[in-house]
């Protein structure tokens, strides 16, 4: 009989595991920054949270992807079916995008402030600026998964249903670059706007409401003002809403769009550079504001 089999089945021993020091690698500030970015993205998507936290982001992804799949599928099966152009698609997912940003941005900032976890973060190997930039990166990267990936699928679908997909892909490669650029810009501007609101409001639900209602209200005010005023300067109303400016940018990239000629985005007729400068300024002001909100109050 072996010695092991001689041990009774009820035998147990408790060992003190003691304390082991960590002598491994310490990766420094950049790794800490990335750890915060990745963790923030996971939390915002409801990963390692109850399933209820995953429902909203998942549904929003479906809202952005299902129309693409349906359009491409219909175009492949039905000879007369057409796939929507990029401007129409971007207009279509604008609300979904803003709801997504409203879901993600407050999760990034409001929760840490409301639950007083900031002292834990600031006592680690990052600075306050690193914290803000990590949250910004996390918001933008997540939003890009909604504003870039579906539109790439749309581009791919449009080429695949063509008579010669290989030739279509080569011919429309510049369209791919444009839609990706628009998607990235939308994610950056929307992400920063969302974080600006989230940095000023502690309650997550209030921040969500302010982001969605704010964007809808500003867009509506811009349109109504444009219609109501008949002076030449009414074209400046377009700058009331980032959403309108985006529509105008999309129209500049894809002039042969289906937008009605009476739309403000066309009649405002500012140059593409003006719109881009405006968006850049919005982003810069937004980032500075969020950074200012996280300066030590001494």
């Amino acid at each position, binding site marked *: 009989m072996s010695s092991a089999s001689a041990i009774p089945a009820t035998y147990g021993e408790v060992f003190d595991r003691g304390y082991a020091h960590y002598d491994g690698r*310490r990766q420094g500030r950049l790794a800490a920054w990335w750890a915060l970015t990745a*963790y923030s993205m996971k939390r915002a998507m409801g990963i390692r949270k109850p399933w209820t936290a995953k429902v909203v982001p998942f549904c929003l992804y479906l809202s952005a992807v299902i129309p693409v799949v349906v359009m491409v599928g219909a175009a492949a099966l039905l000879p007369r079916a057409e796939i929507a152009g990029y401007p129409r698609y971007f207009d279509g997912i604008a609300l979904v995008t803003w709801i997504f940003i409203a879901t993600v941005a407050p999760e990034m900032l409001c929760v840490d402030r409301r*639950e007083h976890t900031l002292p*834990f973060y600031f006592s680690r190997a*990052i600075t306050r600026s690193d914290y803000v930039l990590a949250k910004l990166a996390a918001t933008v990267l997540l939003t890009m998964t909604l504003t870039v990936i579906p539109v790439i699928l749309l581009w791919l679908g449009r080429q695949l249903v063509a008579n010669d997909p290989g030739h279509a892909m080569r011919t429309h490669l510049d369209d791919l670059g444009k839609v990706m650029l628009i998607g990235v810009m939308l994610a950056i501007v929307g992400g920063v706007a969302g974080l600006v609101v989230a940095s000023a409001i502690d309650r997550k639900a209030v921040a969500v409401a302010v982001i969605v209602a704010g964007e809808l209200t500003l867009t509506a005010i811009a349109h109504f003002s444009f219609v109501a005023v008949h002076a030449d300067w009414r074209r400046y109303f377009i700058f009331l809403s980032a959403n309108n400016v985006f529509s105008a940018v999309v129209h500049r990239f894809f002039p042969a769009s289906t937008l009605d000629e009476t739309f403000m985005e066309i009649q405002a007729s500012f140059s593409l550079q003006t719109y881009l400068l405006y968006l850049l300024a919005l982003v810069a002001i937004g980032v500075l504001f969020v950074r200012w909100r996280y300066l030590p109050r001494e």
Partner: protein
Amino acid sequence: MTMAPARTSAQPNGQVARTPADGAPPIIETRGLRKAYGGVVALDGLDLIVPRASVGLLGANGAGKTTLIRTLLGLSKPTKGTGRVVGYDILTQGTQLRQHVGYMPEAEGLPSGTTAADFVGHMAEMSGLPARAARQRAADVLYQVGLAEERYRLIKGFSTGMRQRVKLATAIVHDPDLVFLDEPTAGLDPQGREEMLELVERIYRTMGIAVVFSSHILEDIERICDYVVILDNGRLVTSQPLAGIGDVQGTLVVQIEGDLAAFSSLLVERGYQVERGKDDMALNDLIVHFTDDEVYDAIRDAAVRLNASLRSLRSGSRTLEDIYLGDVGAMREAQDVVS
């Protein structure tokens, strides 16, 4: 001073050095450290050299303890002065410093919808540990603080004591050289406080991590610390070892039922200086001056020989409370005179 186990620690120059507790460089050095918020001076020219130890940071509420910790962590820029913590400059090496220093904030602040393992592991990553090592360390330190079973439960279901343990785990998960604990027993019931003090004691004695324990409770500091730094209104009252206070040398106050003169003579024969109590209320007290811990045997032997009953035996030496009240009082009086 009780020795902590020797440990290996990374140094600012990138080398890994073996730093024994005794003879090790100071963990905290400051020169003329001053922090003012407008007209309010929170720290007033602190010159500190604190050895690797279990250090009590003592002071009343508003004395400047939290400001000092925040400044030493590089989170708050001093108005004037310089400082080094575990070899890192607090002005220019904040992020490197915080990879080697832990901090347990006083304020309640844990994410409720996260498991303890998840949050502690995340904090390890935030201190620069690779993801896999961070998860492993989180499991280890949660075991060390007594939350091995509960580590996959959401923090929102935790009691105050368990939350304090999670906070402690986040402070040591990256195996720092030094950990700042800001009022770790605040809000705990007696049993929770007892358990927390035992844990803090273990951090230095068993794990070999130097501790700065901020509190306004003298008893807690006297119990677990080897060294004390006392602040009052942002000024340094004293910075000294606690060893020697009230145990190795000083005075004992003895009360017996029996022949007081004979009892006194027996102690004098053993080489102790003995005097009678001077106050009216203490005329039956014998004050025994001693320089070694054999005095207790001498008192016992004398009581047995005279068949006297020992009614009371207490330390007449200077306690931490005496130091605190005496030195803080003296400093305030001096300030009053100056002003």
